[in-house]
């Protein structure tokens, strides 16, 4: 395979969308004829039935796409909820949303004492939590999803275990939300916990 064909192959691999041949030529630093030759080389390489990928000409240009042969396996691998073990930050964030919902991100941050941005984004991307309107101050509110209930084997949010079992100070009367916020602020104020 020529060096130019190898470069074009890498470019098509990286592009999420079809690429116009002129853009390919410009990026690879070649002229249109050289690019056409490289694409012809790739066409031979990716002849139907030869590989798991195909070289396709579509409206926007050229693209690599998977052979339909792999469709079923792809669905088994990818079209299912992603459920890797939760990181501690994700578990904390998810617990706060589950018990206090709807809850805003600033509140989550105050309770945790550290920013919850990436954990919130991951939980949202995996479909465990979703937006639920805005607070009176304009912050996005979060709640858990039906997928969350299924993945935790819960019939409804009411079936969440009572916190009593893990509560370090079960005698306190105040509402869970107030107590969490107060504990978070105390942790943030204590330099030894920083």
């Amino acid at each position, binding site marked *: 395979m020529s060096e130019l064909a190898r470069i074009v192959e890498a470019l098509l691999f990286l592009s999420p969308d079809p690429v116009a041949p002129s853009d390919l030529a410009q990026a690879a630093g070649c002229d249109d004829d050289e690019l056409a030759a490289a694409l012809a080389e790739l066409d031979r390489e990716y002849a139907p039935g030869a590989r798991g990928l195909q070289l396709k000409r579509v409206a926007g240009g050229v693209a690599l796409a998977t052979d339909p042969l792999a469709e079923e396996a792809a669905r088994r691998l990818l079209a299912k909820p992603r459920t890797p073990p*939760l990181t501690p930050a994700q578990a904390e964030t998810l*617990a706060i949303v589950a018990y206090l919902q709807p809850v805003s991100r600033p509140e989550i941050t105050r309770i945790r004492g550290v920013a919850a941005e990436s954990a919130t984004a991951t939980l949202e991307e995996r479909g465990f939590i979703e937006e639920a309107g805005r607070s009176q101050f304009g912050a996005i509110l979060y709640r858990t999803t039906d997928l969350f209930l299924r993945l935790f*084997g819960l019939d409804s949010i009411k079936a969440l275990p009572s916190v009593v079992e893990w509560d370090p100070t079960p005698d306190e009367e105040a509402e869970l939300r107030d107590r969490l916020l107060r504990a978070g602020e105390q942790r943030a104020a204590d330099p030894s916990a920083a």
Partner: protein
Amino acid sequence: MTVASLDLDLDVFSGPFDLLLTLVLREEIDLLEVQLAEIVIAYLDHLEQRDELDLEVATEFLVLIAALLELKSRLMLPREEEELLDFEPGEAAEELLARMLEARRYRRAAEHLSARLAGEEGIRYRSAPLPPALRRTNLADAGAVYAPARLGRAIGDLLRVPPRLNLEHLTSARVTVAERLTHLRSLLRRGACTFDEAVRGADRVTVAVTLFALLEMYKQGEATWTQPAPFGEIAIRPGASPPRHEAAAL
């Protein structure tokens, strides 16, 4: 300003104070070559220009300079002052050595990692959204893979406030310039005194802070001092200016 950004122009080093600390710890500057008195003078010059004393910053500076002094004195292993050190000289050198070796170990590991990252330069992975057909997940396929107890435990942990640590062994909060100013002023109200009297029974940090407070009083004209010979007794007398009202001075 913070102490960290104090600009220094020394014989062996020019730059901010925190960089000097780093370089000393990295052995890129030999602490033995740093005249610590120059740093103190640079700090006093800075105060002179500002014409005000931020007591919090001053205390931080004193703690840092005291740490450097301690490190330097350990490096020098002064035989005649052995009893002043908390460690046996050999022990102090071993502790310092262990810290330098540990720092060196991770500095080399860091070089290895940087080289590794550079070696992977130009290797890119694909990041593209899944084709639409693969994006829909079937809720019915989702089984219970997580334990709800994990969530309860996380909330319990978040309700926990760590016990207050005992910080008394740290020097930072033990003595402030303000306290030593008050102490010196009360001594001078009764007339002259010597520096030794002012710091009788005090630890090293307190001595350093007291000296600093004295410099400040000298600058304000509240006190004068004389020392006939190096390492001789320092005599302190009330100065020409009356003490400022304490509340205003602080």
